[in-house]
């Protein structure tokens, strides 16, 4: 387990260096002055600029500049937004939790629905349910998400009037920002309208999260199906059959667990895909997350924001990657180290 952890740590450090280097080099790639892009100080006076240049080692060797940039990052200083003049770090702290909330709920929906359906398809391999599930999953995988979002609003918000179309919660509820994860904040607040707010927030997240979840769900269906087929084909299932266990006993006790382990392995990779979808969905459902903010930043040529947002989002994805690796290792004894060898 120690070696496993060290290896992940090593990977994490490497990735962190890669990502910061990428974000640092962006300030040179973006149009305009690198120092301005890095700090966001667009209206700095010559004296202020000189001070900033000193701070960021702007006239030294590139490695020193990078190091100066890193030190600023560690101090939580991502520069200020060119458009709103607010510190990027505080913007990220405000927005990232919303994105995390949306994507985690979507991931949960995608897995909770996709994996059982995938198993169902595998159990009915090459029968009608299998074919139907495969076809529907192909459909779900092919729908452009922004279009799906629009249709969902049209049907569920306008025609049926069941679900709200925009935002995280109705603005009538005033929720203090504590953790940023709204459900926690609501539970932590002492408002008399707590449960109303909770219900309202739940209604708000259903549609965007489901829209985000559709495509990953179809992928989970496929993954779960393949994985289950592989497991059902393996000798320990035959052996279990020979042991005299019934079909459902085998499914519950052995097949689900083993195929689930294989599916979990892919969660990390799917998460990047899911966050991409969440970015577009945030635009459609006016979800106050980091994706929408990033896209707006492009229109406003807010390069500092793009750099910070990219760094924050990709680090988040990578942390989820590593987390799933650990969960996978916890579930799958094969991925851990051998305790007492042959």
């Amino acid at each position, binding site marked *: 387990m120690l070696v496993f952890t060290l290896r992940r740590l090593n990977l994490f450090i490497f990735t962190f260096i890669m990502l910061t280097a990428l974000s640092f080099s962006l300030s040179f790639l973006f149009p305009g002055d690198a120092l301005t892009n890095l700090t966001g100080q667009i209206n700095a006076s010559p004296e202020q600029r000189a001070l900033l240049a000193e701070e960021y080692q702007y006239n030294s060797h590139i490695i020193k500049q990078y190091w100066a940039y890193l030190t600023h990052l560690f101090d939580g200083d991502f520069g200020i937004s060119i458009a709103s003049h607010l510190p990027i770090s505080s913007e990220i702290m405000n927005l990232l939790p919303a994105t995390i909330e949306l994507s985690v709920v979507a991931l949960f929906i995608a897995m909770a629905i996709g994996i059982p359906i995938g198993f169902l398809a595998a159990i009915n391999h090459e029968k009608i349910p299998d074919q139907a599930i495969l076809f529907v999953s192909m459909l779900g995988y092919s729908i452009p998400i922004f279009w799906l979002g629009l249709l969902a609003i049209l049907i569920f918000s306008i025609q049926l009037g069941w679900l709200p179309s925009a935002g995280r919660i109705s603005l009538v509820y005033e929720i203090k920002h504590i953790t940023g994860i709204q459900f926690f904040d609501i539970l932590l607040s002492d408002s008399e309208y707590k449960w109303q707010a909770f219900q309202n927030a739940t209604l708000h997240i259903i549609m965007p999260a489901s829209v985000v979840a559709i495509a990953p769900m179809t992928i989970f269906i496929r993954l779960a199906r393949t994985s289950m087929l592989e497991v059902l084909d*393996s*000798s*320990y299932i*035959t*052996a*279990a*059959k*020979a*042991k*005299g*266990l019934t079909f459902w006993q085998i499914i519950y*006790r*052995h097949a689900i*667990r*083993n195929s689930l*382990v294989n599916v979990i392995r892919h969660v990390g990779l799917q998460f990047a895909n899911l966050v991409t979808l969440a970015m577009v969905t945030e635009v459609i459902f006016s979800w106050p997350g980091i994706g929408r903010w990033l896209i707006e930043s492009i229109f406003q040529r807010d390069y500092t924001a793009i750099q910070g947002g990219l760094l924050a989002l990709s680090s988040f994805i990578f942390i989820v990657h590593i987390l799933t690796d650990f969960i996978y290792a916890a*579930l*799958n*004894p*094969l991925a851990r180290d*051998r*305790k*007492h*060898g*042959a």
Partner: protein
Amino acid sequence: MNLLDIRNLSIVMLSGNKKIVAVDRVSLVMKEGELRGLVGESGSGKSLLAQAIIGVLDEKWIVDADRFHWRGNDLMRLSIAERKKIISKDIAMIFQEPMSCLDPTTTIGEQLEEAVDDKQLTGFFWQKKKQRKLAAITLLHKVGIKKHTECTRSYPHQLTEALCQRVMIAMALARRPILLIADEPTAAMESTNQGQIFRLLASLNQLKNMSVLLISHDLENMAHWTKRITVMYSGQFVEAGTTEQIFTTPFHPYTKALVESTSHASLTLEPKSKLSALPGSIPILQHLPIGCRLGPRCPRAQQACVNAPKAKNYHGHIVSCHYSLKDTY
């Protein structure tokens, strides 16, 4: 009384519009308390036959037999569920590559406990858990594993192949079976370990009067451990008899070739003389010859061999050949 009586069992797969007969009208009779060998090259349908008996074959295989009696019950007349119930109660099976036959994500202990039949436990439900555990430990002891705590806590990949096979046997014993089918239990194992497993099987056979159907391609070991042997080739029954009969007076040309290719036989061979072997190789399922499937390779083949031969019984020594070697001895 015959424990198992199988007549003309065929296993068929439909591939497209073609019908592939993987096992072609094989018969097998086993007596109670017998340790019987089933020999054949890989691909001869031994494993299929074993899996057909225990009923764990894939759905793509269609099994059909003229007679399938288990301790006098005609199993063919029962529904699949009933058949399974009887068989899983009385017959157990162990497989080749025991490691892959154990669930990699579950500890040995859990898997063992799961194999213990509920009916064997006498206590109330809150006592059952403990009883199960005890039963599992007893089983481990039975197969000669002393360090039971370490073993039950381990995952399959943390044990050696031989240990895994012992665990498999322990699991098989959990239901107190009457017949144990061992499908190449020692494949890919070192010879010292092989010996351990065989010894264990033999002692179980003798001490508990448990019948064993030992499947292997390794004729030498079979000669050592079994009393009677059945030989198969490419899904067809070839010859059956006592071990001695098979080794000293094989009636079938294939059996003869098989016996001659063992190192045991080659000890008597002149130095530098050719090792005997049949020409060609075992045919693949898609291109099975008609009639006697050994036909194209058989040194004694004649025109009559395009028809499948009928089995002939010579005082318990059964052979299925048009031109048997019986008269040459």
